[in-house]
């Protein structure tokens, strides 16, 4: 036993798995020494910016650039006609559609890119933009996806005229993109027809936007001497961007270098390819100088990828005791002018078929119709896996509505329908294999933590007091039990534009026992440089502080699909562990040679291999590393390096139980979060401090979405919420204090059992906030009211229920 304290001390010194290690990234950020795209300054660098359409749907009759070319400092004005000979006036989207880089004859949404002005600096570019004159002819605008599908709706995509087949199957209307079906339609309809109880509702998840604090941008530099194109940019998936750039430009991939420097938040906004990237690259090729493009906040909100905009019609069937028997869902998905969703190819509605949620629902059917409208393209996963927050919101609202229909407590209804711990791995009716879970334990812990019964008593007393005229405030208890599906994903069914969604890690151990690890992912604030070093520290027994983690440069990092959809830990984290194990396997052979024993006579002990039964005889990883480079070992190559490309066997399924307690002022519509309890189960916890930070941030983005944040259009297709005055981003004053908690159900197929957490709080948070609003009014007859629950919409609920006297 004398080794035990020593081994514990050595474990602590590694700062490995499970440690709240302080972040290595922070020193540069707190001192203003981060390196974001707009910080990059190259000799002779030019600045490009867009002339954008003020119209949502119009024909572009003419573009007059002469006056702009006379503005001091303006060097070029690029239009679609200039890009056409290069075949770059349109570009492929990640969803198998194509998108105009610059307006080709017409515009389809307000803010669409019409011309690219290249100038010596951003002031000259702005003056040039003012001087470009564009003649437009208005066309009828459609912002409602249901109206877009009417027979006589205006034709938006004239380029698709006559095409009855799209990237995802048949198109049945000129504004129809795809229909995607999952599950058993016939069986589900039968279950619903025969059910004791059926609840039916339309649930709208409004259009919003990830709005990272740093907008999108890039610097493109064509080095004509060496024939190499380098683009530094806000890329959540740098390798995918390199491949796409190569495919559309014809430049060989080895002559393209994509670099993601520090990224000021992504949340899905920086997954896609935008016209700014293409135009900057073209402008650099044409001028021979580096060209920077950085959008402003209005550009960001109005034109780069939006999120959500799902109209979800649901039917849920149950026995009168509350056992759910079937779920039916039809989604009308508003994709805007181009289908630029960033979903895996085979999943045009992402993983929306996780919409059976945490519940054992034997029969289900889902169909999704994608529709074009005169709105900006996008449809990215805003801090969630692909369309998972829509799915979670849908099922968590349907459960609440079913509870109303049954006259049951919504917590109890969930409990009797949860998938039981012993049912995992669980095959859902819509095609997923849930890897692991223990929902009942999490749920009971959450309800006990908030004294759920006590809250319900208080709520009942409040309702009575309200009815007696003693208060004008109601109390809402928002419940959610969500199941995420993250870590895309197995290459057999997950790819984007044909690129398999594996990820990678490459490790080099230096002779003196420190290391560098490079990954195919890219941090945007998640702290990869801190946490991936921790994974590795536990795997290879070198201190995390001795391991550099590097990402984002396609010339040095191994190929990977990037960071979004909470995939970094499930996929790249697994690759890191697997690469570490390869290192350890070789280290074991070296140690055996050095100790003159058989490989099998050694055992791993934190940071060393020791002879079994003789712990005093050992070689530390530091010693082994030195030997690996400097000692001739028969049968082994020198060096200590490994690379792992990890193709996950399954997704991971993090889950959680959230409770939101909300005070609602019936007269003003103002809401106040009195308490928020968040229990997350993300499997093995790598860094509890970072997990907690991710939960705080995700919940705050959920708060924003649920309570006010939207991209709203008027009937003319004008964006009404294009600045941070109107697009709701909460300050520290509107944001509540959160209580976090956890259970640990490791993923059985992940090398270290981790599942990913960054997006869970958004997925679970949105229904928790929304359910709290709905729950406050349940006693007065509310069934469904669409988000966002800003003051006037909450007031409208109260007004509609006759609560204003």
């Amino acid at each position, binding site marked *: 036993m004398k080794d035990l304290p020593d081994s514990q001390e050595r474990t602590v010194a590694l700062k490995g798995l499970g440690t709240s290690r302080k972040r290595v990234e922070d020193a540069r950020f707190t001192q203003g020494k981060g390196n974001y795209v707009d910080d990059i300054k190259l000799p002779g660098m030019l600045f490009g910016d867009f002339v954008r359409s003020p119209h949502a749907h119009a024909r572009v009759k003419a573009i007059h650039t002469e006056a702009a070319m006379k503005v001091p400092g303006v060097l070029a004005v690029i239009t679609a006609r200039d890009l056409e000979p290069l075949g770059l006036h349109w570009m492929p989207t990640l969803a198998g559609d194509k998108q105009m880089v610059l307006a080709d004859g017409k515009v389809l949404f307000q803010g669409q890119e019409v011309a690219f002005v290249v100038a010596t600096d951003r002031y000259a570019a702005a003056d040039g933009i003012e001087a470009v004159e564009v003649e437009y002819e208005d066309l009828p605008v459609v912002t409602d996806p249901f109206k877009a599908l009417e027979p006589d709706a205006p034709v938006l995509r004239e380029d698709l005229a006559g095409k009855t087949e799209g990237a995802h199957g048949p198109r049945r209307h000129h504004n129809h993109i795809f229909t995607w079906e999952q599950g058993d339609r016939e069986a589900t309809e039968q279950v619903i027809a025969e059910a004791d109880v059926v609840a039916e509702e339309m649930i709208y998840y409004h259009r919003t936007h990830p709005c990272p604090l740093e907008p999108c941008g890039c610097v493109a530099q064509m080095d004509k001497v060496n024939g190499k194109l380098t683009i530094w940019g806000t890329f959540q998936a740098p390798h995918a961007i390199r491949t796409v750039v190569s495919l559309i430009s014809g430049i060989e991939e080895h002559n393209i270098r994509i670099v993601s420097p520090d990224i000021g938040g992504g949340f899905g906004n920086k997954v896609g390819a935008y016209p700014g990237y293409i135009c900057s690259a073209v402008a650099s090729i044409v001028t021979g100088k580096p060209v920077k493009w950085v959008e*402003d906040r209005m550009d960001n909100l109005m034109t780069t990828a939006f999120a959500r905009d799902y109209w979800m019609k649901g039917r849920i069937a149950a026995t009168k005791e509350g056992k759910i028997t079937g779920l039916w869902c039809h989604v009308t998905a508003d994709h805007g002018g181009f289908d630029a969703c960033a979903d895996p190819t085979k999943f045009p509605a992402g993983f929306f078929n996780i919409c059976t949620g945490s519940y054992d629902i034997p029969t289900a059917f889902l169909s999704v119709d994608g529709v074009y409208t005169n709105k900006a393209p996008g449809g990215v996963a805003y801090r969630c896996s692909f369309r998972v927050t829509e799915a979670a919101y849908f099922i968590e609202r349907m459960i609440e509505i079913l509870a109303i229909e049954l006259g049951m407590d919504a917590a109890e209804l969930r409990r009797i329908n949860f998938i039981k711990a012993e049912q995992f791995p669980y095959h859902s009716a819509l095609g997923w294999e849930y890897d692991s879970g223990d929902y009942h334990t999490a749920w009971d812990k959450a309800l006990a933590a908030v004294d759920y019964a006590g809250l319900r008593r208080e709520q009942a007393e409040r309702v009575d007091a309200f009815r007696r005229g003693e208060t004008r405030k109601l109390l809402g208890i928002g419940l959610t039990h969500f199941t995420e599906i993250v870590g895309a994903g197995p290459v057999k069914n997950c790819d984007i534009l044909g690129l398999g969604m594996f990820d990678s890690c490459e490790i080099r151990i230096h002779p003196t026992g420190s290391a560098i690890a490079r990954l195919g992912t890219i941090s945007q604030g998640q702290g990869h440089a801190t946490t991936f070093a921790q994974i590795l520290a536990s795997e290879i027994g070198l201190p995390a502080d001795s391991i550099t983690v590097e990402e984002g440069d396609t010339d040095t990092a191994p190929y990977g699909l990037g960071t979004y959809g909470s995939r970094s830990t499930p996929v790249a984290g697994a690759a890191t562990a697997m690469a570490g194990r390869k290192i350890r396997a070789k280290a074991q052979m070296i140690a055996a040679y050095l100790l003159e024993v058989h490989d099998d006579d050694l055992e791993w002990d934190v940071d060393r291999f020791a002879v079994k039964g003789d712990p005093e005889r050992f070689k530390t990883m530091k010693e082994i590393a030195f030997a690996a480079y400097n000692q001739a070992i028969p049968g082994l190559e020198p060096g200590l390096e490994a690379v792992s490309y990890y193709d996950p066997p399954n997704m991971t399924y993090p889950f959680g139980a959230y409770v939101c307690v909300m005070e609602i002022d019936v007269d003003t519509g103002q809401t106040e979060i009195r308490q928020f309890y968040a229990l997350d189960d993300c499997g093995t916890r790598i860094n509890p401090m970072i997990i907690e930070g991710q939960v705080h941030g995700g919940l705050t983005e959920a708060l924003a979405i649920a309570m006010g944040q939207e991209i709203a259009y008027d009937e003319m297709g004008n964006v009404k*919420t294009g600045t941070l005055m109107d697009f709701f981003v909460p300050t520290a004053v509107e944001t509540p204090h959160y209580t976090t908690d956890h259970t640990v159900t490791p993923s059985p197929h992940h090398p270290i059992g981790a599942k990913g957490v960054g997006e869970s709080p958004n997925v679970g948070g949105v229904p928790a906030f929304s359910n709290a609003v709905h729950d406050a009014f349940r006693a007065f007859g509310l069934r469904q009211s669409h988000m966002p629950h800003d003051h006037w919409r909450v007031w*409208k609920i109260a007004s509609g229920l006759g609560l204003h006297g």
Partner: protein
Amino acid sequence: MIPARFDYHRPGDIAAALAILGEHGDEARVIAGGHSLIPMMKLRMTDLAHLVDLQDIAELRDIAVEGGTVRLGAMVTQHDLIASAELAQAAPLVREAALQIADPQVRYCGTVGGNVANGDPGNDMPGLMQCLGATFHLVGPGGERTVAARDYYEAAYMTAREDDEILTAITFAVPSGGYAYEKQKRKIGDYATAACAALVTMEGGRCTQASIAMTNLSDVPVWSEAAVQALVGTGCEADAIGAAVEAARADIDPTEDNRGPVDFKRHVAGVMIRRAIERAVSRA
């Protein structure tokens, strides 16, 4: 968001500032804190050739309380209003309202003169100054004249100020009685969905004086004489307050925007007015 070019002037006194305005007419604009004007310039929604910065005119920066009168120089910032102990003593309503304007950074720059002068219906100070019965001091080529805050606003961004005049100061009598500024907004930094300033003086259980003014509920700030009449002479019982609220509500004319439709705003205005009066009465 890049503004168009302009010529910049930083005069050292009011005479010099007036000379520049006189020379360039409506091509010139005065800039104080700039936090209303500069965003408009960056969005290229306002076009001007000459910017006249008042920051070097020291006499515009004073807060003075003398002989029962408060005098605020036009360049006094919201932050100065909050930080002034003298003002907090003399007119705590001003501090209470200033704390509800914008955010800390904007309050360091935003001035009381800028807030009242341009006629932006979203600004809080115009309604507040109407509530206080303040007087605006305008200096032009012909010297100084005064305009009552309650007469200053004509329509959104249309005021009694001539292009060649500068609003240099605001004066008002030290208010008595109870006070309150109630503002509903979507978040810190937002303009009011509805806001109401109230002053109520009670003597021997009777309301002897009152003043009620509202923000962002019409294209100009609204001071409600009818609401005052409904309160004065009463004991400010529930009925009287209810009558005052209804009277004030009758004077507003809100428009729909992202904060909500007209019926919602009218309702919330009623709530803000009621809360302001009740709180003012409780402090009276």
